[in-house]
């Protein structure tokens, strides 16, 4: 057997290495030494992230007989997820170090790394078996993470809601996959399925399969109407986990979604799932916004905002071409920094004061100008206000969605644009609470932990520069163009 092929799995191997080191250290180190777990993890993971960025991604190739394939875009999305995960780790330190309600902080890191590993598999899988394994590896530990703060009841409720819905969704996904298998001509390789579908005719079974697979994946992306768990879980889970859920797992799922639907179901794009997705996107954006308008709890608020953001991400998928892929990746990247920026502020304030309500943010700028400044930037970026990155990611994803030139997609973009007004409204509500409300601040002035500040600075830098510095998008675009044939061969 040729082991050189495993070079293509470089990211997974690095991650696995980090995981093992952390695990062994956490298991065998003594009480004293175990204090070093956090810095160790941070350093290792940081190094790993940087390494994956700077090492040339020349290891194109497939492993396990094509079950695992690594391409430029896969490397990009993995790097993006790394950055996200790293920022999450940074901002979780204060919480994890706080003595109460933490049993073994090592587990937090381990579980988190495992889920990340699972996401890698999801991303690179070109065979449904590997994909399902990755998916479950990515979603099951999250239930444990959601239940992490044992003393909080909400945490358990969040966990049970998450796990139940997750299992249900995986059941539906499997059902759908079984139908797919039935139609596939005996293979679960994406390419084989694509070929089989291209030759087969449209049937109810196929539609059922598509709908079920869409639902199964829609769970992780929290697309409407598969999103109902989101708000409760985001609210109940520890903030670090929530932010992780909202950006990293969502990003991975989005990419996997894209790969499966373009590469494997590409043949039935125009006459089947384009319209399913069309409906789902409209529902997602609108419902997410409508719910977000009324939220007072910041985490719940962010949950619904992330629901509607998922709808925008899907605009890249429905475009179904290289531009769509590039814009979606860029959107995810920007979304990661913007959302994590918001969460960094939220978690910092929660860790300091335990306050989570939007009303507690009133007059924040008087006591903590920098936090409110960062929050404002994050909100503007999420709302898509120039010159912040969010504006560029939004306009680029709209450009992608209109690139096919079909009037239907213009209509979709128009609906999305009108929804941005609603979203602007509730993002401005936060800004209003912080800057405009005349009340005296509830939250006292304090200095947030250095890790939190590093995380915040990273996010702010991203928010400010990602849009203005075009090479980032350029790189993503080139990557997706080079992968275009593999992905979109069946569509156009």
């Amino acid at each position, binding site marked *: 057997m040729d082991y050189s092929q495993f070079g293509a799995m470089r990211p997974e191997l690095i991650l696995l290495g980090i995981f093992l080191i952390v695990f062994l250290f956490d298991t065998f180190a003594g009480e004293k030494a175990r204090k070093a777990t956090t810095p160790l993890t941070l350093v290792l993971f940081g190094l790993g992230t940087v390494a994956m960025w700077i090492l040339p991604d020349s290891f194109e190739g497939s492993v396990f007989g094509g079950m695992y394939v690594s391409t430029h875009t896969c490397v990009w999305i993995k790097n993006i997820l790394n950055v996200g995960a790293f920022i999450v780790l940074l901002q979780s330190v204060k919480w994890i170090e706080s003595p109460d309600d933490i049993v073994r902080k090592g587990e937090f890191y381990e579980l988190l790394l495992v889920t990340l590993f699972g996401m890698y598999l999801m991303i690179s899988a070109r065979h449904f078996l590997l994909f399902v394994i990755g998916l479950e590896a990515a979603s099951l530990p999250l239930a444990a993470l959601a239940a992490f703060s044992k003393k909080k009841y909400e945490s358990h409720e969040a966990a049970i809601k998450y796990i139940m*819905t997750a299992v249900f969704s995986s059941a539906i996904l499997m059902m759908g996959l079984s139908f797919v298998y039935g139609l596939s001509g005996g293979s679960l390789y994406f390419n084989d399925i694509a070929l089989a579908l291209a030759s087969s005719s*449209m049937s*109810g079974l196929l539609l059922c399969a598509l709908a*079920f697979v869409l639902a199964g994946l829609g769970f992780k992306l929290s697309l409407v*109407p598969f999103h*109902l768990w989101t708000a409760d879980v985001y609210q109940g889970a520890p903030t670090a986990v929530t932010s992780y859920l909202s950006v990293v797992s969502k990003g991975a799922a989005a990419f996997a979604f894209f790969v499966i639907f373009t590469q494997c179901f590409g043949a039935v794009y125009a006459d089947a799932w384009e319209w*399913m997705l069309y409906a789902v996107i409209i529902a997602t954006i609108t*419902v997410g916004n409508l719910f977000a308008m009324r939220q007072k709890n910041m985490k719940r608020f962010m949950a619904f905002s992330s629901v509607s953001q998922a709808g925008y991400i899907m605009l890249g998928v429905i475009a179904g071409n290289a531009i769509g892929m590039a814009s979606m990746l860029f959107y995810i990247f920007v979304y990661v920094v913007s959302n994590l920026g918001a969460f960094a502020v939220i978690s910092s304030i929660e860790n300091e004061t335990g306050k989570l309500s939007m009303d507690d943010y009133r007059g924040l700028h008087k006591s903590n100008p920098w936090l409110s400044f960062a929050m404002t930037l994050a909100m503007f970026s999420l709302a898509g206000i120039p010159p912040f990155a969010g504006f560029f990611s939004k306009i680029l994803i709209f450009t992608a969605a209109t690139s096919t030139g079909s009037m239907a997609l213009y209509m979709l973009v128009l609906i999305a644009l009108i929804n941005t007004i609603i979203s602007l*409204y509730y993002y401005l509500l936060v800004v209003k609470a912080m800057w405009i409300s005349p009340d005296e601040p509830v939250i006292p002035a304090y200095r947030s932990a250095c890790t939190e500040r590093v995380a915040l600075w990273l996010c702010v830098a991203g928010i400010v520069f990602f849009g203005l510095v075009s090479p980032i998008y350029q790189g993503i675009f080139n990557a997706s163009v080079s992968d275009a044939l593999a992905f979109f061969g069946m569509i156009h």
Partner: protein
Amino acid sequence: MGVTLPILILALPITMFLVLGLGGVKMPRKMAGVLGILGMGTTAVISYWVAFTYFFSGEAAYIVDGVRQQVQMFDVTWLAFTQSLVVKIGFLLDPISAMMLVVITTISFMVHLYSWGYMEHEPGFQRYYAFLSLFSFSMLGLVVATNIFQMYIFWELVGVSSYLLIGFFYKLPSAVSASKKAFIVTRFADLGFLIGILILSFYTDTFNFIDMTNNPQGVLASTGGATFMGASVLTWAMVLIFTGGMGKSAMMPLHIWLPDAMEGPTPVSALIHAATMVVAGVYLVARMFPVYLVVETSLVFVSVIGAITAFYAAVVACTQIDIKRVLAFSTISQIAFMMTSLGVAWPELHDGLGYMASMFHLFTHAMFKALLFLGAGALIHAVHSNNYTAMGGLRKYMPITHWTFLIGCLAIAGIWPFSGFFSKDEMLAAMFAQHWFWGAWMTMVAGLTAFYMFRLYYLIFWWEENPHYKEHKPHDAPWQMSVPLIFLAAVSCVAGFIPFGEFVTWNRAPYHIHIELPVAATSLTVAVLAIVLATVMYAKKNPIPTRLKDMMPGLWMAAHRRFYWDEIYMFVTHKIIFNGICRGIAWFDRHVIDATMDGFAKVAQKTSYAIRGLQSGNIQLYVLWYFAGAVLLAAITWICLL
């Protein structure tokens, strides 16, 4: 003469305005007054010189075998709408503008001088002189305009300076509202003027007077026979332009602002609302006269409006108590005279006598009406009231004012040998030449004029002595005020003998005036009769007027209330436009349009509240939705596709 003098004529007043307006607050009152008077005096001298050279130098530039030329001293581009349609600011010298230069600068100078005495104790003395200079500048610019757009520009400027001067006592609400009324009414008229210019310039593609007046047939041809609602567009244009004139010259039904304008200082009334600005309308028609000639309908319109207004104003004037209002209405009536006589000045009959006559009357009227107003000012200055009820028997207290005022009255009544006689006689002659009806009608108006003027005269200077004189004794005004009175009185005596026809005629060719005995005799008789009647009724205190009044109270009241024009206007503007339309629209804006915009937000809020049950918190319902969603997705796609 080069362009320096003409430029100076415009430059001096505006400079005075800027100097007094910007630096006025800093400088002492005397200095401001002296500056103003000197500035105006210089301007007057220059204008006299310009007019003199124009009329008498006999240079080839100004007169070619008897026909006086129209000379553009200068004409600089100000704003280019298109390549051909260019607004220029220039100086057009021709008989009427030269004549107007003389009139304006003379009266203005007199008023400047007079005001020094009259306004001495008023606050804002400097501001007053600044505004006077501004007005003089605008009025001069108006009369020397080389093109209709320049005329419009200065037309607006005289409007605003009149606004500023009427509202000079800006702490009095009455003055403020009067100024506002004056501006808005004239502005409304100017709207017609503007639209007229729009139409005219659209077809002729020029603003220039000379181009239009030298070739009126060409103007008519350029419209290509286009018509609108039955009338040719040129008729529309000329009528609309005349509307502007109606506004400024207070023709019915746009006359309502002039009586109120008497709220301003009396010298201002003399300058603006008797002598100069209010004749701008006449001047405008005279300026465009050849074009009016080719569309007779508009000319008839002019004369009809004139005739009606003349009579109306004369009747109203008979019943006013405020002496300035009497004078105001007599002004309206006299200007209407000029309008009518312009309207009947068709060359084919009596070769356009009416034109000359109306210009002549414009000249003489300016003089004696200014005289009358300044006299009224002196009276008011003496008794501190505008009403003749506070006067009576003043002749022995204020001899100068009395004699000058009498001269004014005789002049306006048209008694030989005072100036009014000659001009009015020519006008009547022209009207009789047009149709006996015009002549008869206007003769009657002339009679009324004589009557109400002498009614006024007697009620002020005879009737009976007012008891108040005991505690403070009225006396003649200081020299700054008397000098103008005397000067103008002198002019009013002799101006009639000017051979006006030599200077101003419709075709600028000389015309030899000759008194038409029958007409002259008629008008003179009527005037004398009217004066006799007035003497009988008002010479000394007697019950006849009251008895007459009680005989026909309704008529008297109607006339006294100016036939309720103001009430009608109040109703239309306040009740209908302001309360109806404006409030309606404002309400609509807030409660319909704005409400719709807020409505979107409300709908979104309500929806989000309505669907919150989706997040029931119960996993089972979540899952139900989940499953239903998946199945529905499949089903709907199925239905749509297969």
